[in-house]
C-alpha cells in the first residue's frame, strides 16, 4: 500500500516573533507509512505537526497534500483535507459520552441519542475498540481516551493522523495495545506521524524516522537504518560556530553543606518517587525532556504548586523537614524560585523596574517597612539594575517595555534582593537574547562562587553543560542518573534522558 507521497513540505519556515521555530524544513510522508519525529525540546517537532494540522500556518514554504498545494488555516480545514491530530492534552469533552464525542460537530438539527449510540457502537466494533459508547469520557483511562480520539480521526476519514507524544501517559500494556492500533491503521492505508521522546518506540514502530534539530531537518531515513546511537548523535550534534557554549568545564566547584534533600517525592501525575540533593556553593543542573517532572519537583519544594497535587515524600531544607503550601514561607526560609514563564508569574507589568525589585524586598523583609519609602525603593532598584546590568532608559521604565533579557534580569533581581540561600532557575535563558545569556550565565556562576546553592533547570543541553558542576538527569518524574560535569558528555546525558 505504501509508496507515493501523500504529504510534502518544502522549504517550510515558521517564524514566531521573528525567531524561526522551523526553518527550511523538507519533509515527505508516504501513503500508509508510520513516520517517527524525534528531536530535543524546541527542535520544532510540535510546530511542524501543527503546520500539517492547520493549527499554525507557514511563514514561507509550500505544503502539498495528495499532490495539490494546501495551506489549511484552521484544524477544521485540515480535517477536510484528511489530516487529523491527536494532541497531548486530549481534545475530547470530558463531561460527554464516548458516542457524543465521536459525533461532536456533526450533530444534525435533531439528534436521537439512541441513534448516536447505535452508530457509535457499530463503528467502534468495526475498529475492534473495546469502549462502550455510553461511558462518560472523563471516567476513561488515558489509553481509552486515546482510542476514542483515534476512532474519531478514523470516523472523519482521516488519511493522515498525527500523534503528539501518544505514549507519554500510557502504561506498558496500554502502549503495546496502542502500537497494534497504529499498525492496524497502517493496514487501512492511513499515514501516521508521531512525535516521541522515546527512541525505542520510534525504532520499533516507525517505518521511517525524521530527526529535527534547532528547527531544521537533520536527517530522514528508514527506521531500519537507524540505531539509538545514530539518532542521539543526530539530535545533539551542533554547529561548531556555537561558541557561546563551546567552553568545557575543566574544574568543578566542591560541594558545600547539603542544603536541600528531596526524598521519594510523589505528585500525580508528573513526579514519581523523586529523590535528589542540592549542595551549597555549587550549581546543580537538572536536565530532562518535557514531562520529566523537573519543574514540578522544584515548584513543590518552593511551595509554588498547590498542595492538592502533593501525594507524599519528604523535603528537608537545611536539615529540617519542611512542607511549604504557599510560596511565602518558602521565600522566608531562603528559597527563590525564578520562573520559566516570566510573563505569567514573573514580573509586575504596570510597575516600574525599581518597584518590581522593591516588592521583592518588601515580601521577604516586611519588618520595619509598614510605610513605603520611595527613596529606599529607588536605591534598591538602582543598586540591583546596576549589579545585573539591566539596560533601560531609567529605573522608572515599566518592565513590559524591556527586551526579554532585561525582563529576565529584573525577575532575577527581584528574587536576589531577598538574599536567598537556595536559588532555583527554571529555564533561565528562555526567550533571552544572546548578549544577555552570557551575562545571566556569569551571574549564576557568581552566585555559586559566593556560596549559594544554585539549581538550574534547563531543556537545553549546552546550557546544562556550560553551567553545571553536577548534572542530574530526570526522566518520567524522577532523577535517574547523576553525573559530575567532568565525566558528562552530551551523548551520555541524552541517553539517560530518553527511554
Amino acid at each position, binding site marked *: 500500500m505504501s509508496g507515493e507521497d501523500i504529504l510534502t513540505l518544502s522549504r517550510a519556515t515558521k517564524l*514566531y*516573533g521573528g525567531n524561526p*521555530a522551523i526553518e527550511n524544513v523538507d519533509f515527505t510522508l508516504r501513503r500508509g507509512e508510520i513516520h517517527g519525529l524525534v528531536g530535543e525540546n*524546541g527542535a*520544532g517537532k*510540535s*510546530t511542524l505537526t*501543527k503546520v500539517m494540522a492547520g*493549527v*499554525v500556518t507557514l511563514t514561507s514554504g509550500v505544503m502539498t497534500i495528495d499532490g495539490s498545494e494546501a495551506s489549511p488555516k484552521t484544524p477544521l480545514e485540515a480535517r477536510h483535507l484528511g489530516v487529523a491530530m491527536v494532541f497531548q492534552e486530549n481534545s475530547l469533552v470530558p463531561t460527554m459520552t464516548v458516542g457524543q464525542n465521536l459525533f461532536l460537530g456533526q450533530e444534525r438539527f435533531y439528534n436521537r441519542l439512541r441513534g448516536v449510540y447505535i452508530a457509535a457502537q457499530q463503528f467502534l466494533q468495526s475498529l475492534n475498540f473495546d469502549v462502550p459508547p455510553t461511558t462518560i469520557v472523563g471516567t476513561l483511562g488515558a489509553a481509552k481516551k486515546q482510542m476514542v480520539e483515534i476512532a474519531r480521526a478514523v470516523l472523519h476519514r482521516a488519511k493522515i493522523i498525527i500523534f503528539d507524544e501518544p505514549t507519554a501517559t500510557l502504561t506498558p500494556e496500554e502502549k503495546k495495545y496502542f502500537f497494534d492500533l497504529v499498525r492496524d491503521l497502517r493496514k487501512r492505508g492511513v499515514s501516521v506521524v508521531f512525535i516521541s521522546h522515546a527512541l525505542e518506540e520510534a525504532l520499533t514502530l516507525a517505518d521511517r524516522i525524521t530527526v529535527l534539530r534547532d*528547527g531544521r531537518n537533520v536527517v530522514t531515513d528508514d527506521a531500519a537504518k537507524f540505531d539509538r546511537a545514530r539518532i542521539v548523535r543526530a539530535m545533539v550534534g551542533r554547529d561548531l560556530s556555537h561558541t557561546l557554549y563551546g567552553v568545557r568545564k575543566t574544574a568543578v566547584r566542591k560541594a558545600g553543606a547539603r542544603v536541600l534533600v528531596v526524598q521519594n517525592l510523589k505528585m500525580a501525575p508528573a513526579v514519581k518517587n523523586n529523590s535528589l540533593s542540592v549542595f551549597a556553593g555549587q550549581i546543580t543542573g537538572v536536565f530532562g525532556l518535557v514531562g520529566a517532572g523537573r519543574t514540578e519537583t522544584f515548584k513543590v519544594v*518552593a511551595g*509554588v504548586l498547590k498542595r492538592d497535587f502533593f501525594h507524599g515524600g519528604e523535603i528537608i531544607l537545611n536539615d529540617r523537614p519542611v512542607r511549604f503550601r*504557599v*510560596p*511565602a514561607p*518558602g*521565600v*522566608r526560609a531562603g528559597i527563590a*524560585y525564578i*520562573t520559566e*514563564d516570566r*510573563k*505569567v*508569574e*514573573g*514580573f*509586575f*507589568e*504596570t*510597575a516600574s523596574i525599581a518597584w518590581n525589585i522593591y*516588592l*521583592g524586598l*518588601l*515580601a*521577604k523583609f*516586611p519588618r520595619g*517597612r*509598614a*510605610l*513605603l519609602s520611595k527613596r529606599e525603593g529607588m536605591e534598591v532598584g538602582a543598586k540591583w539594575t546596576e549589579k545585573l546590568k539591566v539596560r533601560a532608559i531609567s529605573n522608572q521604565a515599566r518592565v513590559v517595555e524591556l527586551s526579554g533579557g532585561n525582563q529576565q534580569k529584573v525577575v532575577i533581581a*527581584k*528574587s536576589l534582593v*531577598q538574599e536567598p540561600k537556595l536559588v532555583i532557575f527554571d529555564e533561565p535563558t528562555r526567550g533571552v537574547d544572546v548578549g544577555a545569556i552570557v551575562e545571566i550565565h556569569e551571574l549564576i556562576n557568581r552566585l555559586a562562587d559566593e556560596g549559594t546553592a544554585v539549581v538550574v533547570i534547563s531543556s537545553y543541553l549546552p546550557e546544562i553543560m556550560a553551567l553545571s558542576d553536577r548534572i542530574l538527569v530526570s526522566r518520567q518524574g524522577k532523577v535517574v542518573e547523576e553525573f559530575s560535569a567532568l565525566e558528562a558528555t552530551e551523548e551520555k546525558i541524552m541517553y539517560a534522558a530518553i527511554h
Partner: protein
Amino acid sequence: MKRMKLTQQEIVLAVFTALFLAFALFLPGFFTAANMLSLLQNVAVLGILGLAMAIVVLGRGIDISLIAALAVPPGLLLQMVQDGHSLFASVATALLLSLAFGIVNGWLIAYAEVPSLFATLATGLFLAGVGQASLFSIDVVQWSKGMEGFQNLGQGSILGVPTPIIMFAISCAAVAFFLRRTRWGAYIYAIGDNPNAARVTGIPTRPIVVLQYVLASLIGCFAGFVMAASINSMPTRIFNSTLIYDVILVVVLGGIGLSGGRGGVVNVIIGTFLIGTLLNGMTIMDVPYAGQNLIKGVVLLLAVITDSFLNPRNEETAQQGDI
C-alpha cells in the same frame, strides 16, 4: 496602546468638563451654589462606597455585597439604640458585624476560591435577608433619642462645607494614604497586577485578599453611618435599589481597570463627580426613573467596553505557542 492608556484619565476628565459646562449653560438651576452643594452632598455616600469598591477592584475582585454592608450594620445600630442599648455598644456591635462580614467574604474568595462576583452576590443577599428577617422591626429603621450626637457625621457643616463632603474627603485621604504609602497597599496593587507573580515573590496573597474585603465592608459600613446620620434613618430597602450599579459605574468610569492594578483614589473622585453631575442633571431635567436607568446602563456598558479595550487581561493571550 500605551499612549491611549495615558490619556484615559484625561478622556474622563474631558467628558466630565463637557457635561458640566453643557449643564451649566443650558440647564437653568444647575449652576447655582445651592445645587452645587446638594450635588456634592448627594454623591458623598456614593463616593465613599466607590472607595470601598476601588480597593477590591484594584486586586482583581468585585464586591457586589457592598450595599448590604452599607445598610445592615448601620441599620442594626439604629435598631439597637431604639431598643434601649447604649450608643457606644451599638456602634461597636455594628462594626463587629461589618468586620465579620468582611472576613467571611475574604475567606470565601481567598481560601475557598469562590469567584468574587458569586461569593459576594450570595453573602450580600444573605446579610440583607438576615437584617430584614430578624434584626429590624420595620424596613426603615427610625432614629431614636439615644442617637443624640451621631447625626454630626452627616448633618451640618464645618467651615461652610457640608459634613458628608468632609467625610468623603477624609475617606479619600485615608484610602489614598493606605494604598500609596503602606506596604499593604503596595501588595494590593501587586496582586491586582499579577497574582501569580505576587504569590511566587512571597507576598502573602490570601491574607491580603481578606484584608481588601474587610476594608471594603468597613468603609461600606462607614458610608452607611454617614447616610443614616444625614437622613436620620436607615432605609434598609436600599439593598433592592440599583445603587450597586452606580458604585461600579463610579469605579469603572473613573478609570480603575477591572483587570486590576490600575488607578487610584483620584479615579474614584473623577468618577464620582462625573456620575454626580449626570444624576443631578437628569434629576433637574426630570428624567423619569426608568429613563435614568436606561442612560446609566448605556454609560456603564460603554465604560466597561472601553475598559476592556484599554486594559485587557492579556496574560493568556500574550502567551506564545510552543515550538
